[in-house]
């Protein structure tokens, strides 16, 4: 309940949802998450790097995702994020909420068209 306020924010909530959804497929590092979101949305959604990392840290702070440092791949250490159990539950919730909202919006938009 503590963080319901943040998920009411559409923009921030949307990015959170996208990150959670991306990580639901497999653990990823930051750059890959950004690219993945761009790919999945067929580059319709450009992720601002300035907001990606803050979002990652925020989600980590809330315990929805978990970062782990990997040094295997070459000399450069990389932080790989994965979804936690809590995060998985949150994803389901966010998704339900998103569908509810988008259904609502669609209804309104559709109703407008019918009225014309």
């Amino acid at each position, binding site marked *: 309940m503590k963080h319901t306020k943040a998920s009411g924010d559409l923009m921030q909530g949307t990015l959170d949802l996208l990150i959670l959804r991306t990580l639901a497929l497999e653990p990823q590092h930051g*750059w890959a998450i950004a*690219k993945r979101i761009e790919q999945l949305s067929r580059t319709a959604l450009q992720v*601002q790097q300035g907001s990606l*990392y803050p979002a990652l*840290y925020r989600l980590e*702070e809330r315990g929805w995702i978990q970062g782990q*440092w990997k040094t295997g791949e070459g000399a*450069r250490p990389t*932080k790989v994020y994965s979804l936690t159990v809590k995060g998985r539950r949150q994803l389901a919730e966010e998704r339900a909420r998103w569908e509810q909202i988008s259904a609502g919006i669609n209804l309104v938009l559709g109703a407008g068209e019918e009225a014309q």
Partner: protein
Amino acid sequence: MSWRRLWNVARRQRRDREAQVEMADFLAREAEARQAAGAAKQEAARQAAIALGSAERWREEAREARGMPWLEIAGREMAMALRGLRRSPGLAIAAVLMLGLGIGATSAAFGLVERVLLQPLPYAQAQNLVKVQLTAPGAKLDNLLIGPADYLFFRDHSRAFQSLGIYQTDAASVRLSATPQKVASMDLTPDLLPTLGVEPRLGRTFSPADATPHAPLVVLLSDAFWRKQFGGDSSVVGRQTEVDGKPATIIGVMPAGFSVLDHTETLLYEPLGFDPAKVGLGNFSWNAIGRLRPGVTLAAANADANRMLALVMQTYPPPDGYSLATFAQARIASSLRPLKDAIIGSTARLLWMVLGSLGLVLVIVCANTAGLLLVRVEGRRHELAIRTALGASRSRMAALLVAESVWLGIFGGLLGLGVADAGLHALVAAAPQGLARLPEVHMDGWAVVFTLGLALGASLLLAIGPALRVERLAERPNLREAGRGLSASRARLRTRNALVVVQVALACVLLTAVGLMLRSAMALAQVNPGYDRSQPIAVVRISIPDADAPGARAEFAMQRRIFDALSALPGVSAGLASTAPMDGNRMMDPVYVQNRTPAGSSLPAVRVFHYISPGYLQAMGIPLLAGRDMTWQDAADLRPVAMVSAAFAREYWKTPAEALGHQIRVTGNDDWREIVGVAGDVHEQGLDQPAPAEVYWPLLAAHFEGSALNEPGGVIAVVRATNAGTAAFSAALRQAVWSVDRNIPLAATTTMAHYYDASLAQTRFTMSVLGLAAGMGLLVGIIGLYGVLAYAVAQRRRELGVRIALGAAPAGLMQAVVRQGLGLAALGTLLGLLAAGFAARLLASLLYGVLPGDPATFAAVALAMLAIAALASALPARTASRVSPLEALRAE
């Protein structure tokens, strides 16, 4: 707690490092991807950096996203601000010193106001306590105390009062060793202490039985007396001692810090009682404190008291020699005052004046510091512009500047606490005697809270200017222009100029107030007190024990022997009298003049009474204007004689000489007494009060105020001698008195100079406080003016250099700077004098012999301000005229 904080800090540092690594990882991957897409290596890195955006902003947002606690953010800003201030220590020290002084001085004044005016009296439910006093418009008397008859009747028949007690200060002779000791005492009715709601710390307080006429004497000790004389010994209760030659039992000790109103000097309390059978009307010489029943208003209590006053007249007989008609003509009415108001009285205005003047200094200091901080922001335009370009948000930079002000406020506040404590002690020490509630003043919690609140308020106020300036700078961050302003733009200087005008104006207000007080003090110093001050005059109170001189005759005889003993001292002139001028004691009653019946049914005017021995007028140096002095024979033979002051004589006759031979008396049954001499006027109630009409009576008189043989009892001896006031002289004086009677207790010897100084004390105190405030305000204000001019000259260095190179006369440049300085000072002075016109009216009751709108003072202040401003402008002007064109251009 500290471990947790340490851990938090460690965690934050680790996270910052990790974020750094992650950012590098991102940059590398983005660059690789772009390179893979065909970009050149360097171009790929550049594009990656653009994709990442501002590193600084990125770091900020990353931190904030992790929910960094606001306290930590504030802490970081504060730390950064502290580093910034340390880079310009001169400014920081100047600002902290000024703020510390300003805050400290204001807080010291607040400490006074808070303790004296705002704190409730130290009694239970003090809001229900009232001072019971009367007015007698028919006798032109205000603030009349009450008489025993009023007390007895009020006590037994009041509806409005829950209880009521009366008291009178006294002096008691206590014998704890071989020689009796004179101590300040108080006679009070048994119901006074319960009225105040006070319990003793040991033993019991007085019971009604203790105050009956033949009850054995019992006394209460003050805490201070108990500690000093009995070492705080609890077994003191029940101990026997000797008070005024009578055996007395100590029944209790009052709690520490207790005093009846301001009578902290009281060491001993004695019960006071009246025999209702012997009480008559009049004798309005008792202080009364009443406790109203809960919910009773002052108006209702006054109505109740007036109802009772009418009944008192029907219940008690008038004193001998007076008729009931006399009392009816006086039209006595109740005039209750809340006890606190009655105590504070005129002190309130004085203290608000102190707070106001020192508060003005703080405003001047704040205006000055604000000017300094504005200069600092201007000087940092370059730095701020760079930080803006690097992505620091405006609010961050504003926060940084606020944090700097807060630091100044914190240090200023801490310094202010020290200054306030010292200042409060200084104020209390310098305050005139008799200032209400002063003994209890010290820095308490409220004063500390006020000081810190003031510091915080001042620092936030100071931050407004720079923070707004940053907003404007941030709107157009122009790196190229920053730090290289050609000539100071008008808009930029306007705020600083306004601040300087405010400083000059307020300093001007303070200076005018000082000027007026100075004129008052000078006028007071010119007042002839009426007695001769050219030589010191020792004053000592002499109370002859009843046991050693029973009856008026015996007392008079002993007084004569004391007079002879004192007069035998080498090189002295001595006299005895009931009271000394300006000593705060005075007796007064209406005086009838034969064949001069007052019009209608009114009473004759009330006159100040003195009972004097021959030689008193001479010893005091009060001139004899007509007739002769009293003689010992006059008194011994009970001749009906009297003397009057010149003011009295002039009121009825044209010249003092014409008063001789006329007859006066106090009551209808008295003998008429012939005026045998007229003395010069004396400023009996202080230099600032007009000399009243006075009457001098002999020490011994028959048929006087209803008594067959009248003797004033306690007298003071006045002794004029070149070495009066020295310890050796006081010792000789004591020996002379004790050569007559070893049992006479002597209070400390004082001098007329002491009373004279006390009479000037309030004016001098006001002048010193205002002088200090004006000095500080003027200094700071002038430094502010100097600062603005010096800064303007420094900013225009290049322009001035060019002008000089082009042949401008240095004198012309000097004039321009001085003109600017004088312009600001003139505007400030004009506004200041206007404000001073209002401020002076508030000061009016403290002024003497000078009008609040005194043109000479205002003109002098204006001239002084302009002269000082011209001086302050001279230095920057000289700098301006000596700018070397080569140097100025090279400096760029």
